[in-house]
């Protein structure tokens, strides 16, 4: 029989222009290919996450995908109560024999786009715009800066955060304003990791004739000719794979960290940014990519010691 599947988004909701949306896309791809549907819910608070996980678990679902680190504790708790139900947790690590925790090596993907940015930049001044100042966002920033400095030690990275409340993910005006301010300080490539606010950043870059870098999904097509590349984080693949594995009976619990090697993160090169990526840049980025995959280049994860080397 077809497996019963569920997906629980966190407070950002499935249209957050970020990992929730990516998860939704992965699940949708699965549905399209297999014709197997899934239940989807948004949990707006941590309490609700527990409530909805338990509610779904009671329906004896085969797999519940929990999106976002905010559900970590809820997954850990409910997974213990329902050992027969399988859980996949995105972006967080929860213990349990029936839990597969998937994290991403955001630093690796960010490193790549940092390399690309530093090479594309004429001023060697790069911008980074994050949503809220939290370790996850810092990880992006840190990887990005490492990549940039690897290309040119003197390159500078300007960092700004949009805000400190949930509104920070939905404030494109501020996202755009931060970009403008960075441009005025000489920045010519900006990496936006700020959900909906990042849309304002990309838009402003386009308007000001500067380069931007998208995040999570491939945002190259939003402003072709202006989006240098995107740091894709394949939450969609993670969800898709998990659903597929359950369908095929190959699902396994555990903790997976998906980096470049595992196809969890990557940079995006397609027809929309083909013209921006010179052969030089492409060669360099691909080289670095290979080095990271081979373990020759180590990218430091901000979260390990809560500090960034550069």
């Amino acid at each position: 029989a077809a497996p019963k599947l569920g997906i629980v988004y966190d407070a950002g909701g499935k249209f957050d222009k970020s990992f929730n949306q990516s998860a939704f896309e992965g699940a949708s791809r699965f549905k399209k290919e297999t014709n197997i549907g899934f239940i989807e819910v948004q949990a707006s608070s941590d309490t609700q996450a527990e409530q909805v996980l338990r509610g779904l678990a009671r329906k004896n679902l085969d797999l519940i995908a929990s999106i976002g680190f905010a559900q970590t504790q809820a997954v850990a708790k409910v997974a213990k109560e329902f050992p027969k139900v399988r859980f996949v947790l995105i972006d967080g690590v929860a213990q349990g024999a029936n839990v597969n925790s998937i994290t991403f090596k955001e630093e690796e993907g960010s490193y790549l786009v940092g390399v690309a940015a530093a090479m594309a930049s004429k001023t060697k001044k790069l911008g980074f715009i994050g949503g809220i100042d939290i370790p996850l966002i810092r990880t992006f920033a840190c990887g990005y800066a490492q990549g940039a400095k690897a290309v040119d030690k003197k390159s500078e990275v300007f960092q700004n955060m949009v805000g400190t409340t949930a509104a920070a993910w939905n404030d494109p005006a501020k996202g755009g304003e931060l970009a403008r301010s960075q441009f005025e300080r000489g920045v010519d490539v900006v990496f936006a990791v700020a959900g909906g606010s990042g849309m304002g950043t990309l838009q402003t870059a386009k308007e000001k004739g500067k380069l931007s870098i998208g995040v999570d999904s491939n945002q190259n097509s939003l402003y072709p000719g202006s989006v240098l590349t995107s740091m894709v984080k394949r939450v969609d693949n993670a969800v898709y794979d998990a659903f597929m594995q359950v369908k095929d009976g190959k699902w396994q619990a555990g903790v997976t960290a998906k980096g470049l090697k595992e196809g969890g993160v990557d940079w995006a090169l397609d027809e929309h940014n083909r013209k921006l990526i010179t052969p030089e840049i492409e060669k360099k980025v691909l080289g670095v990519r290979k080095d990271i995959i081979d373990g020759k280049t180590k990218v430091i994860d901000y979260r390990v010691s809560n500090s960034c080397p550069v």
Partner: protein
Amino acid sequence: MNNNDLPRWATAFVLPVLNLMSALLVAALVIHLLGEDPVDSMRILINSAIVNPEGLSYTLFYASTFIFTGLSVSIAMQAGLFNIGSEGQMYFGGLGLTLAMLALDASLPWWLLIPCGIAGAALFGALWAFLPGYLQAKRGSHVVVTTIMFNFICASLMNFIIVKYLIPPGEQNTASRVFSAAAEMPRLNTWFPVLGDTPLNVSFLLAIAALAVYGVMVWRSAWGYKLRATGLNKHAAHYAGVKISSMIIIVMLISGALAGLGSVNSIMGSTHYLSLNFVGGAGFVGIAIALMGRQHPVGIFLSAVLFGALIQGGFDLSLEKPNIPTETFIFIQGLIILFCGAMENFYAPVIGKLLRAKG
């Protein structure tokens, strides 16, 4: 037209029910336009928020927090102060509670630990309200402005504290560690298993007690009398010997403490850890609840339950009816506030006419 002309039963029951119906009617229209069956939707909504014991239990769980934030806004309003800062005060109260837990949860038994958490929440909530209160009393700085500012400041500060100090090493989640089991507020389902596996806990009883204390203090005590006099006529209050500036500071401290207590339900009663943005707008909902409930204990209780029911029912409904996004219920909340809170007398002329025609 004045609703004083209507008998009490009409203003207390008929009008609110008509207003609620109107709001739901508009809501039904929107649900219909979204392509779902309004009648069926309402049935699901009511069933999962009120009828089903587990749903009701969740409704009351959400209501418990709202009662505290509603009380927080209400008590300040009694003194003529519009405290928009309950959001930040509850957030900061959560910090107080968490610090107490992190320090003590390994060493104290539950019956000492829980009071410590409650005290920490109240203390920090009050602390966060102190400065706006002080500035209003001594410097005349408008409390509306300062409390809005303090909400923003609190968000930044908490962001900083949580990220920098409270996240356990190696964790992704922007939250403190989980407290020990001793720090869990006893759940009501231990005594009433019918409530199911829900977080409804002793905080609900505390909320009810707070409502009662609030009612007695405001309307029966000399302090409440002075409080209301201050809110209604500052000149007269001064004449009557009220120390206006200490009254303002004290009432803001109480208001902040009440808001802080809202975090007890959310944290000790449910998640058992402090996370970023855990307040999630409960402080702002408190404003709506205080206004809709007319700063009256019964009114606050009913409004809080109504909002709790909307969250719980709406959540279940969006699960069953995928075409209805959760945001629809935010819209419906707005409608209910509009009809029941602001246009309370909309039907008074009609009812008045009907009554007169009859008798």
